[in-house]
């Protein structure tokens, strides 16, 4: 069985602040991390490998420094890593990104399961996972909270919905996007860390993937960002103080008006 995990390196958003004077994101000293949801995808791939036996490959598209994220995935137990990096890919939107990743997956050869995190914490679109399965024309299940059983040709999974969950039978090969509930990512082992240091990371450029130049990077992206701005910041409002009865009365009177 071949399992592919697609991950993204993101800024640790908890530390992203905006400099009010220059209106810019303060990026100095901000660590890059693996997108939190992708950690669950990596862990799930390793668990499938442990349970059923599989070859696991992690792929990312990004600047050269995204290599760190790949090494971290190897430390957790992933076998191989591929970095797609090329200046011509800069400015890719979700269409162009999922196109590029799908081409890399095809280049890898056969695959049974592709795992992605539900969404990335910087863009929050949740579009690249389904986009990859659309490009590859394979079935998808999003918001997967449990992989129950994998058989030779199919897989039983649980998909989280707003009201609860669905048990779904899907034929392989397929793509899953996973939510936090699926597992608890492990810490890398000492052996894993050592392996991460030594593993050779494969680097692919746009040319290696034989990409259609009109479909990559900014030029190949149907969407364009035309403006970026800071939302009006929320500031603290009224603080009610006093005895319980008094503050409850005050809170009640302001909320009463707002209740639909």
């Amino acid at each position, binding site marked *: 069985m071949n399992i592919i995990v697609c991950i993204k390196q993101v800024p640790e958003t908890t530390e992203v602040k905006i400099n009010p004077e220059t209106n810019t994101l303060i990026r100095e000293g901000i660590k890059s991390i693996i997108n939190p949801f992708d950690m669950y995808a990596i862990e799930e791939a390793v668990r499938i490998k442990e349970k059923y036996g599989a070859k696991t490959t992690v792929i990312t598209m990004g600047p050269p420094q995204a290599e760190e994220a790949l090494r971290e995935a190897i430390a957790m137990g992933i076998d191989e890593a591929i970095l797609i990096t090329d200046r011509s890919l800069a400015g890719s939107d979700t269409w162009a990104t999922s196109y590029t990743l799908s081409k890399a997956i095809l280049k890898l050869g056969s695959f049974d399961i592709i795992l992605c995190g539900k969404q990335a914490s910087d863009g929050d679109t949740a579009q690249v996972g389904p986009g990859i399965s659309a490009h590859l024309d394979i079935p998808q299940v999003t918001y997967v909270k449990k992989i129950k059983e994998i058989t030779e040709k199919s897989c039983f999974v649980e998909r989280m919905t707003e009201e609860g969950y669905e048990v779904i039978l899907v034929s392989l090969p397929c793509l899953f996007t996973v939510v936090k509930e699926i597992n608890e990512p492990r810490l890398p082992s000492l052996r894993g860390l050592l392996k991460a240091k030594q593993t050779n990371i494969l680097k692919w450029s746009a040319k290696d993937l034989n990409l259609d130049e009109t479909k990559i990077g900014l030029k190949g992206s149907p969407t364009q960002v035309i403006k970026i701005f800071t939302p009006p910041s929320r500031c*603290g*409002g009224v603080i009610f103080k006093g005895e319980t009865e008094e503050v409850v009365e005050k809170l009640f009177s302001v909320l009463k008006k707002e209740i639909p």
Partner: protein
Amino acid sequence: MAIRIILEKCTGCSLCIKTCPFGAIKIQDKKAIIDLSKCNLCGACVDSCKFGAILIEKTTLTKVNLNEYCGIWVFAEQKKSLIQPVVWELLAKARELAEKINTEVSAVLLGFKIKEKAKELIYRGADKVYVVDDESLVNFLDEPYTNILINLIQKYKPEIFLCGATSIGRALISRVAVKLYTGLTADCTGLDIDLEKRILLQTRPAFGGNIMATIITPFHRPQMATVRHKVFASSKEDRTRKGQIIEESIDGILLKGRTKILEIIEEIGSTVNLSEADIIVSGGRGVGSKENFKILEDLAKVLNAGVGASRAAVDNGWMPYSHQVGQTGKTVSPKIYIACGISGQIQHLVGMQSSKIIVAINKDPDAPIFKIATYGVVGDLFEIVPALTKKFKGVL
């Protein structure tokens, strides 16, 4: 290279440095230099430059004949044959946009024995409703739903297509947009029209709401967007409205898919779906135990509210993950969000800071949640919440 400085025009004024959200520009020898490893090609600097010295090479070739596309479509998501409330919000917004560009609003409804529901969509603002009724469409499945939407979009060519940013919508429309080779903007909180160019301006939060971005799809159609719940007001029902209901017959091959639902389990029971809730009562570490959540549930019941939880409460096993609000949980924007015993870590705030009113109840006066709360109460939630429940019980 897709972005460059025209050195002859650059005066080294440094205006662009101030606008760049990524800190990618610096001045060297009185000329701006762009660090391509940091640049995201967002174009903010291009607009800021008074001398036209920054150039982004964008495709201007268009293969799609934009004039062939007209009308605004709304995906009428249904579950158990009930049209989801977010659809009323989409219809209201679609009507507003349609007035601006003088076009009509259509809804597309897929399901089984669903025809009767089509007129509800007309009462709420649709001029036309396209209905596909088939047993295999009773529940959402990615592939048949995708195939049908692609088929209808190619046939009728709407210029704008809107869908709720629900778990179904986000999976479905991402797939449709890729197959149609068009742009999709996720989770929009603002939609408007650039009248001059007749283009949809889609505004959405990124970086957990720390920045907002306005996005367009200039050369591909339809312009597709998913819209966050509860951001736009619902359209009112007008039972005198007239419209056209069109039943589409679909080639059976489009109904085939490789996934099958074996079982549907409902967990939330009588409690309110968080993303559709007008009010959410949410608890964090300060609630202390699973049993104590009962206090919040009582208040929620009286207010007809949903119950939320911080990551700490979920990780401790006090509430199921489906109730988690925040970066690794759900993003919600109710009218009222009541945070009880939640300190307000940034990971939680990104999931709820677009709520209209935020109430914080916490015994720590320095808790960061108070910095964004509309109303704050420093005190013991075990006294305040039950007292509040009692108070509302008397009037609601």
